[in-house]
């Protein structure tokens, strides 16, 4: 499964568990409009660390905080490419 699909499926899984309605995610979808809150993102980052073996927020010295869905996916794609 591609990193993008993994990210998407984890987001769907967490949204369902947390009883949140996940917006249709496109590259330019703002995370703030995704229907998920901070706790959801925290759980997603933990699950993705288990699935992909990387936490891009702590793996690198240069961290930025993603604003769009594409930013979020890119964080993982870039971390995997290192």
């Amino acid at each position: 499964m591609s990193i993008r699909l993994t990210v998407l499926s984890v987001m769907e899984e967490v949204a369902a568990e947390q009883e949140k309605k996940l917006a249709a995610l496109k590259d330019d979808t703002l995370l703030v409009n995704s229907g998920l809150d901070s706790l959801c993102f925290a759980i997603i980052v933990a699950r993705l660390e288990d699935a992909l073996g990387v936490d891009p927020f702590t793996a690198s010295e240069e961290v930025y905080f993603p604003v769009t869905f594409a930013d979020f996916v890119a964080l993982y794609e870039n971390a995997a490419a290192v």
Partner: protein
Amino acid sequence: MQPRFDLRSYARDAAREDGTGLCAPGRQVLWREAIEGTVLSGRRALLAGKSVLIGLSSQFDAALAMLELDGLVARMVITPPDFLGERMASAIEQAQVDVVICDDENKDFGVTVPRFVISPITRETEAAPPPIETQWVLPTSGTTGAPKLVAHRLDGLLGAVRPRAAAEPAPVWATFYDIRRYGGLQIFLRAATSGATLALTESDEPLSDHLARMAEAGVTHLSGTPSHWRRLLMNPGAPRIAPKYIRLSGEIADRAILDNLASFYPDARVVHAYASTEAGVGFEVTDGRAGFPASYLGGVGDVEMRVIDGSLRLRSRRTADRYVGRDDLRLADEDGFVDTDDLVEREGDRFYFKGRRAGTINIGGLKVHPEEVEQVINLHDGVRMSLVKPRRNPITGDLVIAQVMLKENEVSPERKRSLKDEILGLCKERLERHKIPISIEFVSSLAMSPGGKLLRGKA
């Protein structure tokens, strides 16, 4: 005898300029109106000297209630809006609450208790009796699920608030905290006693709307936990505001968040502060780096610090007085130092925070005791015992995870899946969202100490 000062007197002295006050979604009030107004509509005399709990859904209303009740009631228990059910009932009982101030006649407070529904603010006509000292009580999580009630005095809560110089322009404050938690209460008190405008949010307001209102109010000073600030940086509305002063507290401020804030808001002074409900405001770190200088152990202002067994201990007049209703619990040691349970480690000329002493978990500034979650998990018939612990997380600091030892040895994968769902279902029924474990791992054993206690290891 010196006249006693209540919050209204401080606010009255500070409210110099016109136009400063409190605002919230769709509502605003000038400090002057708030000080001279009442939300109790003629029931002040009935409340004088009583033990009162503020159980309001709106922080704006809570601010007005705090302003009016300080100096009037003997005890004021301040609860955030998610504080409900059994915990609310326990707080009402422990604090021997006479009256709950609420905005909904039918709200469930877990026990039968007289309630006063708050009124819209009107100009007061009732004379206020001479002010008495009000005990300010804030609940924190306890190990048993019952909250611990932490008692403060107003002068202790105001201990870290420095008066504004006459020539200094009034800041415009906002906070991501709820003002009914210690970190937010500090900001409310700062604004009230310095005549600064405070832009409050309400729990149902989206961050984007809050940002728009902050931009409109021209917010100069903004406070929140590192988790709040991370959430802000992930919001496209973040460039709309231009704070001059950024304050982080309630969680470990790591290098990533400090550096990101400094580069995103280059004109802002980024300060992280150490404070807790029990220990009060400890100290501020203004050099933009994580951790704090080792020289702080020599004392910072009137706060004395010690590190014993790796944990930070503080002594000052800002610490809480005691736990209400629990004479068996001691808040400070014999020398008056409060053990914060926050572990620090020295690296060169600096101390860095290393997380909580095995015991409490900090999720975005909200404290969770593993025991309160374990008790819920252990309610399940199939569970022998459980161990709840933190998992580090870059968004919220920590998350809650659980290891569960079942009574049966041989359990099929299908049965495990349904057990997991049942356990999580129990947690959802009885715990706030952030306390629900994000993962449950079934284990065949859990390590015990020779004394028969779960070995929690260091967090």
